[in-house]
């Protein structure tokens, strides 16, 4: 346990400024899960946009069935990546890739990107998948 805390601390030293807005320690940031279903609410707000998504039983990944709070970033961060207050509305179909909670129980996740009907990805912030950085990491 001590080693895990030390590793986490060192990784935090390497990563976040000391006063970060929001700890992401509760999310499995290295795991990407696909949540696909119907938007119940699209809350375009600060500090985080929230997409409440209902994934039906019988989803390709049974562990994603249920109603989820997928948390995005601030509107100014998401706006820079191409999101607007009208990107989704209640009733839309949505395919969201997100990092699930570590506890494996709470139906919440940290948004990585949405896959739009035309196949385009809308990322929630500047981060891109492993190996997809560099000059190509544009909107």
């Amino acid at each position, binding site marked *: 346990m001590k080693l895990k805390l030390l590793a986490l601390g060192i990784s935090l030293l390497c990563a976040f400024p000391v006063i970060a807005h929001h700890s992401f320690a509760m999310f499995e940031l290295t795991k990407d899960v696909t949540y696909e279903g119907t938007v119940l609410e699209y809350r375009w707000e600060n500090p985080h946009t929230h997409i409440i998504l209902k994934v039906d039983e019988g989803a390709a990944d049974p562990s994603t069935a249920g109603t989820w709070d997928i948390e995005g970033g601030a*509107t100014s961060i998401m*706006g820079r990546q191409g999101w*607007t*207050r*009208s990107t989704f509305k209640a009733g839309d179909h949505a395919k969201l890739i997100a990092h699930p909670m570590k506890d494996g129980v709470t139906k919440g996740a940290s948004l990585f990107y949405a896959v739009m009907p035309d196949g385009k990805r809308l990322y929630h912030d500047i981060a891109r998948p492993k190996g997809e950085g560099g000059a190509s990491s544009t909107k």
Partner: protein
Amino acid sequence: MTDNFKRSGIGAVGVLLLTAASFLAPAPTRAETPNLSGFWEMHFDSRNVPPAVLTPVMANEDKSVQYKLDMFATRWCHFFGVPYVMDASPIDILQNLNGKEIVIATPVRNPARHIYTDGRTHVNPDVFDPLSNGHSIGHWEGDTLVVDTVGFSTEGMTSIPGGGRRTPDSHLVERYRLVDDGNRLSVIFTWEDPKVFQKPHTYEYRYFRAPNGTEAREYDCNASDENRAKFLLDVPGGGLK
């Protein structure tokens, strides 16, 4: 021969005179537009603000309504927005050397104003998220910078000098011009908002150029300070023991 020499000499003197004239001319910032950059202060005699002619609904509104809105924004350290920031002296105007943008920074904890002077139009309201400062575009008409602002949110200190408040339907036109040999900056504000004003509401500020070496200030805001909150929201003197 002597005539040729005289003509050459006159030519050389002419070039020298032109050289001297260019040496004395002030440095331009951008082709022929005045330079508004610098710190500008409000003094006791900086404001000419007549009363606004309000719609009956606004005129009959209880004064405490606007007071509470403004104090709430102050207590919770919201962004204050326009027009309040233009009263937060000194303001610092940065007129980009490339002529594409003018930024107005103030000592309060509020995003700076961005006046885009690159020829763009206002953003499609279907995608634009309203801002406390609105969306401002500007162009020069001779020696006057004309700024047009729409897209205001309801965030912040919304009261307007002379009466009325800023709303999402507000339209503001400002005219900036140097006066008094560049020692003063005149800004004429004209607000239009059919739900607030019966006719356009116009007032003028004249800022004074701040002394060389003026430093920007940061008037910080701490919403977690309970004593501060009590001072702002309680009956005056109520928090004093």
